[in-house]
């Protein structure tokens, strides 16, 4: 079973402050993803990465930066947090199976509240 961990699990931040959400995976997957989940929505892709040193914009990248310093670690950075960024954030790692399936394994999520 793939292991994806996130920290912190819960975070309260102030408007205008900097927030860094961290994700670590121990299964040597090339692909990693950051999603946010809001009530009434499915998951929405913020940033993703194909490997160490790469970051790509997803569907809703505005207000977020990403960093992939190593195969194992993928961070999501909110330079100037706003209340609209209050959400639950999920990290996932993924790889291609033998049948071309892109299996994604999810972390437990981080609840972020921006006051």
């Amino acid at each position, binding site marked *: 079973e793939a292991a994806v961990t996130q920290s912190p699990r819960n975070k309260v931040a102030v408007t205008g402050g900097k927030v860094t959400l961290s994700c670590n995976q121990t299964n040597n997957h090339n692909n990693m993803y950051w999603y946010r989940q809001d009530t009434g*929505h*499915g*998951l929405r892709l913020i940033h993703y990465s*194909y490997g160490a040193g790469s970051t790509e914009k*997803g569907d809703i990248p505005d207000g977020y930066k990403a960093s992939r310093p190593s195969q194992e670690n993928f961070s999501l950075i909110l330079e100037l947090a706003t209340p609209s960024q209050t959400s639950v954030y999920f990290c996932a790692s993924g790889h291609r199976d033998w049948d071309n*399936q*892109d299996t994604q394994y*999810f972390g437990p*999520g981080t609840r972020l509240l921006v006051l």
Partner: protein
Amino acid sequence: GQQVQQSPASLVLQEGENAELQCNFSSTATRLQWFYQHPGGRLVSLFYNPSGTKHTGRLTSTTVTNERRSSLHISSSQTTDSGTYFCAIDRMDSNYQLIWGSGTKLIIKP
């Protein structure tokens, strides 16, 4: 753009009843997956089912690609099946990104 619509948005059943969840998508998908989110938030992959029928335990997924629809059938539901079920399809412009539906929240009453 590509869209994924799930129905119903919520479903309440008595334990033992069967559940039928629907997913419709706006373009031909080469990869369709079903995911389950535990009430506590944890997400797990259930099925990768781009076409045809797949079974695992009490769950059956049927995807009819040319009709752009997929269903998830849960037989003899149990309270532990409660949670939210998502379907997601691949993006046409990327091999690594998924477009997610809004989910079906399933509540199984004892």
